[in-house]
């Protein structure tokens, strides 16, 4: 047990050391290390991977959209739920973005962003309401809405598609623009990440999301507003998928009815790899963000490292299973340690 008396008189130095110790122990550190290793290995093989202008930009840019979706997914998973409809939400919002530019020429870009976020939030609200009020597991509900949203997308798009020429240059420019060598998309993603990370750690609402995921029954007995919080988590997740949809349109320029399909699994994968427990209650959005980076960077690094195409998916799969096994082992070890500490007390 730690000493209780010194706590109030911690010097700055011990606090920094404590912080560093916490960093070394944190689940996120391992995944960050894996990311650095992957980048280093790919860079040794081909220096352009990191040290060319394009290479550096791609390193930051490619995972940024997934990062947004993964952060939203992490928030939902922390409450012991899951949102499988995010890929469909992203696709639908991306298509809507293109339609807005076509149907309302001259529409301000900011309005499109707001519309995308609101629309995504609305789709999230549908998920959240079904989960919170119908008391059906989120896995089933969002599997349903995955198909429903995609179906709406297909019905709306048909064989049509949005092309880059349909959208204003300024908007498309956002997709690749950089400020001080850092892509704008990445900056947006990082701002969202920091805000979400801060909220989840420092606000009552954020802590209650953890509490709900840790033990929903206890949360009810505590008198926490479980229904409301879960609803908000889904709305946030949907809104972030909506924002990701707008950015997807800006980044890729071409949107058909299948845009973003499969993204939900990448997002769940990123969160799990990043240490967000699939049964809720623990993990951070930071971990999910690093997970998103690792997932996409591995995809780009494996061909450079000479891994054949069809093995790449398998590597990602192994990574996810590895992460879960690791978490399980760590959890078992921690439980054992805590129980031992109690018995020795």
């Amino acid at each position, binding site marked *: 047990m730690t000493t209780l008396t010194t706590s*109030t008189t911690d010097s700055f130095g011990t606090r920094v050391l404590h912080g560093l110790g916490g960093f070394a122990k944190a689940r996120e550190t391992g995944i960050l290390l894996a990311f650095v290793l992957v980048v280093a290995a790919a860079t040794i093989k081909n220096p352009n991977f990191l040290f060319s202008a394009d290479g550096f930009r791609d390193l930051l840019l490619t995972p940024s959209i997934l990062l947004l979706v993964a952060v939203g997914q992490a928030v939902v998973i922390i409450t012991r739920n899951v949102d499988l409809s995010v890929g469909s939400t992203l696709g639908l919002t991306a298509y809507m973005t293109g339609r807005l530019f076509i149907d309302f020429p001259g529409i301000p870009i900011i309005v499109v962003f707001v519309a995308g976020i609101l629309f995504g939030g609305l789709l999230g609200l549908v998920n959240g309401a079904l989960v919170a009020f119908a008391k059906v597991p989120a896995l089933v509900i969002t599997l349903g809405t995955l198909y429903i949203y995609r179906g709406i997308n297909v019905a709306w798009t048909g064989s049509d598609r949005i092309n880059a020429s349909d959208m204003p240059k300024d908007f498309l420019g956002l997709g690749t623009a950089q400020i001080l060598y850092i892509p704008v998309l990445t900056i947006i993603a990082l701002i969202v990440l920091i805000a979400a990370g801060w909220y989840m750690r420092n606000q009552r609402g954020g802590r209650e999301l953890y509490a709900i995921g840790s033990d929903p029954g206890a949360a009810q007995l505590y008198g926490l507003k479980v229904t409301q919080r879960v609803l908000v988590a889904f709305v946030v997740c949907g809104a972030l998928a909506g924002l990701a949809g707008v950015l997807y349109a800006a980044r890729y320029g071409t949107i058909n009815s299948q845009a973003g399909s499969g993204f939900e699994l990448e997002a769940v994968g990123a969160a799990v790899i990043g240490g967000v427990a699939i049964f809720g209650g623990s993990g951070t959005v930071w971990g999910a963000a690093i997970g998103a980076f690792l997932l996409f960077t591995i995809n780009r690094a494996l061909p450079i490292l000479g891994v054949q195409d069809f093995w790449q998916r398998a590597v990602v799969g192994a990574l996810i299973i590895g992460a879960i096994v690791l978490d399980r082992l760590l959890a078992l070890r921690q*439980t054992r340690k805590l129980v031992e500490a109690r018995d020795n*007390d």
Partner: protein
Amino acid sequence: MSISPSATGAPALELRNIAKSFGSVVALTSGNLTLRSNSIHALIGENGAGKSTLVKIIAGLYQRDSGDFTLEGESVDFTTTAQSKAAGIAVIYQEPTLFPDLSVTENVFMGRQPTLSLGRIDRKRMRNEAIGLFKRLGVRIDPDRPTLGLSIADQQIIEIAKAISLDAKVLVMDEPTAALSGVEVDRLFAVARSLRDEGRALLFISHRFDEVFDLCDTVTVMRDGEYISTDPIADTNVDQLVRRMVGRDVTTLFPKEEAPIGDPVLVVKGLTQPGVFHDVDFTVRSGEIVALAGLVGAGRSEIARAVFGVDPYASGSVSIKGKAVPRRSPASAMKLGLALVPEDRRKQGLVLDSSVALNTTMAIRSTLARFGLLFSRDENAAARIWASRLEVKTSALDTEVGTLSGGNQQKVVLAKWLATKPSILIVDEPTRGIDVGTKAEVHRLLSQLAGEGLAILMISSELPEVLGMADRVLVVREGRITADIPRAEATAESVMLAATHSQEAIA
């Protein structure tokens, strides 16, 4: 009876004629309780007397159907636990309700953390307050560790810290000592007394009379959802309280027919699983009904599950007609003629979405199969025999079991196990939650089966059932068999005393 409020303060919480039903099941008919500040009030009663329902109404988890609920003289109507909490009521449930992934400090303050500007949680202040709380309670718990892996005692201390930080005026503790060791109980009592001296009103629910007499100043007895009495602890004694807890006529119900008692069928020797049950020895003979009585949580179901091989045990042996039953192998237990009708029929006894016929033949699939194939004709034929013998009331064998009444579901479970032609039948709470008529049918059936030479081990929390049905009553208390009472000597008082008191007290 009313109490003299000499040593204690003003009424903090009052319940008058509270009634509560769940569908057709009446949980409370007249709940009365007056908690005063500077007082520790005991609430006692048998299992199912309505204590927990009363607590849940106080906590805002259930809403009363009728009656008055006043807090410091004002009528209140809680619809959520948050409201009762805000009104100054803290409830510590039998099983602590903490968030295992979160730190001790966060658990204490969840939902009402101190905040700085922008709603930022003031972690430092929160931590210091937690440390202060634990210091005041005189315990050492690391405020930063997760609550995962904490002992039940420490978890309860956290619950109490939570209650104090809320500045709760009323503190309800529902069997807090059930899982505690002696030292831990002493620590809890010291804390409870200091809280009382601070002017709070405490409600203490316990089955242990020694604790009630040690800690409390007033005691309320409940029975079958009804208020029986409230007395100052000094004016009463254990015998009187036990009589009030059980006081009802048990002679007319549940007659077990006399049956010749034969050779031992099930012999259990020295069965031990640390922390669950210890040195359990008993024998059940053919034609005999042996009841395992005791309080909920005494370890009766656990013993049955271990005997059947579902749960492990560390040492001891189980044998049926002289043949040893291997550990952890329900399949071999079944082959040797053991059948277990579990406590929770919906979860453990039946496949609710499946038909009566399929459920009835579930345990005899392998003998029904021909060349590895099952024919529904055979299944229906086998099921029909038992369904008609047990008078399962359903129009067709293909009715989904989930749509049947509780009593008929129980009959299907019984049919399923009787179809295996067991030589020893273990029934865990055979009549829980079923109507009176079907109850009598189940009793008649058990009695008839015993008459045919079946050995029956019956776990029951209903004293009248135990006294009416059993040839012998084994009383389990905290994982040990504390008494073996033959039918002639079994009375409500002797069984209840053995279930709640240590062995020396009975002798």
